[in-house]
């Protein structure tokens, strides 16, 4: 096998002329290279840069000389490293961009080196890429990382993918090896709904199969890697799809009322009908506004991907976040959906939490109703939803319920409107792709909650108080019940001790039994709330997962639910010890007593927290009553009033 250290550098692949001029600008392609870390990514990129004359004068020669001096074999990977080093100076590597060109088009390779932050950077890079090269080592075949990257490519919705089977030189250029990988990977990708455009056998090190076909692989009849890449489209075409304008703003700088936004799909022409979702107000495009003002009015069509500013024939109240849509083919307008999410923030995404969501230009808050399945993107281990959280670098299937209806598309119809980000503070915590719309629970049995609430003058709900034994739950529950009854609100207390002597008397205090006890309490509370009762659940309920489950069940059934943390330090509870239970527990008479030899998991984001060691009973009751009245007698019906 030829090594390059003892010869001079080969001339870059001959049939590609030096890029005397920039390729036709519209043909720009953003490319990401993914695959297992040792499968030759740097070598491939280095060789592509070298063969397309994208390396500055003298650079390759200098590296070659340096390698020779060190007695090392010349590696194309060094070329990339040197370029990046030059770019980076002292800056820690992050997503970076390496340009190269062929006679046909220009490319930018979005590279995400590094290890610790690799996933965050790769996702950021791949999310903005038009196409991906998935690299597989012919000797090693599919590895963990290969599968993980396949998964992420499918999640990110990248559809233009070419698989490069590298290091064919090391397997004797045997077609059987290539075919076996083609088959295995093709099947794996098919399961993920990904269909690569081509599988190309290459040897990056020797420049075989990149720009020109290799004599050693006459059995391969498909395109070279570069030919495969040149087939891809720089702007994924969406002009053929239904009209979608993400409204960014409405300007009234002068007499004109201008709706400004991005055409995510379809085209815009004067006279086109447009319906703004959510909301459903319809009009037609009256004019397309541009600056400088053209001599003759612009009539369109303005293609997908374009920014547009329009006026409407009717005076509508349109606002940021709405989607200007084709009335005959509108996006979904719903609140609950399932999605696949990836998480890149150190603070986990937790079941039950309320988190800001951004989709297109829409912004709202969403409740994480449940985490169905998590997948550790590092180990690819599948977890169950019981931990109730998605940790950094994990991928999960979750269910979200947005506080107000939002508009979106599913199934890749308009990719940009089928994906969202979840915000952790000011940062993007993770991204997700919507899989399916969840039907809103329909009340089909007998009287609807609305008519019950018409009789009662309030609606049922659950106020779930959690806290240590002796923290003050029973005291507050009783005081709250009295206040509610005084206000003409039908309420009931669900007390742990009472449950234990009746409904749950066959249960002990193991974690499993505690969970079962709470499951029964939850179902009972939901039934009561369904019937219009305000349920005050005063239960130690020490485990987050159980409380999350209760909240989720209530949400599923459309029952308003709040979690109240009755908080007092253990020492204070133990000092109070109204039922002398701590004393007994310390004496070993009560095993698995919460706070002593069984843990209490404090709520991470309760709807209300009451410090009974610091706040007065009166003050605590005020806050509890206010919260409960807000639920039982909301000033406006839930769901309505989200728009207009």
């Amino acid at each position: 096998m030829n090594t390059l250290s003892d010869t001079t550098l080969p001339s870059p692949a001959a049939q590609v002329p030096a890029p005397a001029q920039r390729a036709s600008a519209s043909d720009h392609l953003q490319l990401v290279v993914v695959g297992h870390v040792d499968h030759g990514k740097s070598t491939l990129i280095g060789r592509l840069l070298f063969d397309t004359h994208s390396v500055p004068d003298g650079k390759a020669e200098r590296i070659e000389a340096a390698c020779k001096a060190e007695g090392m074999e010349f590696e194309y990977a060094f070329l990339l490293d040197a370029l990046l080093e030059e770019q980076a100076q002292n800056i820690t590597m992050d997503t970076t961009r390496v340009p190269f060109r062929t006679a046909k088009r220009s490319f930018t390779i979005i590279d995400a080196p590094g290890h610790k932050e690799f996933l965050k950077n790769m996702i950021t890079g791949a999310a903005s890429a038009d196409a991906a090269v998935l690299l597989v080592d012919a000797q090693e075949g599919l590895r963990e990382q290969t599968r993980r990257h396949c998964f992420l490519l499918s999640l990110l919705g990248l559809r233009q993918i070419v698989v490069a089977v590298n290091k064919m030189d090391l397997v004797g250029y045997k077609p059987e090896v290539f075919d076996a990988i083609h088959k295995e990977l093709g099947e794996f990708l098919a399961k993920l709904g990904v269909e690569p455009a081509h599988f190309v056998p290459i040897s990056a090190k020797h420049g075989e199969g990149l720009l020109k076909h290799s004599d050693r692989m006459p059995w391969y009849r498909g395109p070279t890697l570069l030919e495969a890449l040149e087939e891809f489209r720089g702007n994924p075409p969406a002009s053929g799809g239904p009209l979608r304008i993400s409204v960014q703003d409405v300007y009234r700088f002068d007499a004109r009322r201008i709706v400004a936004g991005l055409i995510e799909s379809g085209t815009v022409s004067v006279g086109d009908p447009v319906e703004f979702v959510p909301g459903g107000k319809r009009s037609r495009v009256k004019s397309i506004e541009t600056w400088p003002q053209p001599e003759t009015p612009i009539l369109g069509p303005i293609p997908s991907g374009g920014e547009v500013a329009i006026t409407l024939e009717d005076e509508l109240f349109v606002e940021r976040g709405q989607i200007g849509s084709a009335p005959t083919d509108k996006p979904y307008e719903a609140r609950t959906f399932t999605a696949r999410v990836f998480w890149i923030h150190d603070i986990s995404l937790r079941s039950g939490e309320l988190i800001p969501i951004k989709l297109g230009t829409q912004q709202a808050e969403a409740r994480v109703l449940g985490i169905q399945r998590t997948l550790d993107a590092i180990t690819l281990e599948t977890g169950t939803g019981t931990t109730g959280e998605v940790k950094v670098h994990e991928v999960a299937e979750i269910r979200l319920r947005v506080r107000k209806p939002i508009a979106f598309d599913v199934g890749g119809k308009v990719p940009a409107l089928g994906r969202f980000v979840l915000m952790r503070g000011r940062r993007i915590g993770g991204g997700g792709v919507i899989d399916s719309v969840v039907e809103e629970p329909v009340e089909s049995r007998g009287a609807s909650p609305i008519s019950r609430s018409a009789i009662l003058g309030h609606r049922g709900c659950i106020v779930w108080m959690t806290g240590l034994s002796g923290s003050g739950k029973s005291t507050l529950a009783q005081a709250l019940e009295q206040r509610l009854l005084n206000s003409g609100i039908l309420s009931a207390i669900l007390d742990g001790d009472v449950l234990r002597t009746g409904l749950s008397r066959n249960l002990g205090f193991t974690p499993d039994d505690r969970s079962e006890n709470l499951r029964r309490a939850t179902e009972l509370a939901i039934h009561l709330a369904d019937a219009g009762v305000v349920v005050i659940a005063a239960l130690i309920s020490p485990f987050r997962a159980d409380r999350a489950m209760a909240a989720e069940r209530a949400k599923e059934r459309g029952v308003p639910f709040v979690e109240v943390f009755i908080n007092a330090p253990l020492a204070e509870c133990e000092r109070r010890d109204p039922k002398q239970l701590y004393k007994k527990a310390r004496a070993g008479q009560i095993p698995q007593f919460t706070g002593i030899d069984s843990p209490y998991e404090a709520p991470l984001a309760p709807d209300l927290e009451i410090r009974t060691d610091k706040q007065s009973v009166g003050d605590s009751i005020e806050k509890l009553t206010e919260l409960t009245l807000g639920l039982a007698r909301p000033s406006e019906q839930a769901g309505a009033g989200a728009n207009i």
Partner: protein
Amino acid sequence: MSHLDDLESQSIYLLREAFHGFERPAMLWSMGKDSNVLLWLAKKAFCGHMPFPVVHIDTTYEFPEMLEFRSWAQKHYGFDLKVWTNFEARGRGIGYETTDPVTVTHELKTVALQQCLAAFDFDALITGIRRDEDSTRAKERYFSPRNAEFEWDYKDQPPEFWNHFTTESGPGEHVRVQPLLDWTEIDIWRYCDREKVPLPGMYFSRNGERYRSLGCMPISKPVKSDAKTIDDIIEELKVTRTSERAGRAQDHHERNAMQKLRAKGFM
């Protein structure tokens, strides 16, 4: 859509997001070619209006011809121009005659900008920097937060993808919005050509010389060139092997000068 259409559309999207996302944004303007493209794009984004102030940090070392262009353009476009100078530093005698260019740039540009930001309480600064201009700019985000000390935490930048950005800033902080990040020098020229964006004459050859990049008078050097039209310039750029900012002395005063300047808040 052509590549220029894509770039234009992306920049307008970013400008509209910035205008919506921040309460008190401002646009930085140096009268240079990138700045003028940025102005032009803002006029497009807001249908002929300029809904935020335009800030020029005047080092007092400006070319007279650029100042003429400043007055002309302000009248031509019609915007709220704020000119800011670090008179305090000038009063202390800071200047190219006495001080090294890195210090001068820091005092008369970065510190001046800090003063201006504090005076007007801007929460976002829209700038015309491009990734291809300088290696340290290659890692920039479209929306790039700066802390109260103006520092850029390039090691821990917020992720941005799918058209979602950091559009909030905390007390004392601001966000740099960089709508031209993906443009190259040639893109800028092609766009100026297509749109007939007004530019200062100093970019074009006179007596065999032209300025490729314009900054303070004492540290901006012209290049040998016969390029009298934008077409000529584009042809010239296709074959040139020198970098755009080669004529800017402050970048090359010492190793990593640009990186030091940028970490301290320079654009």
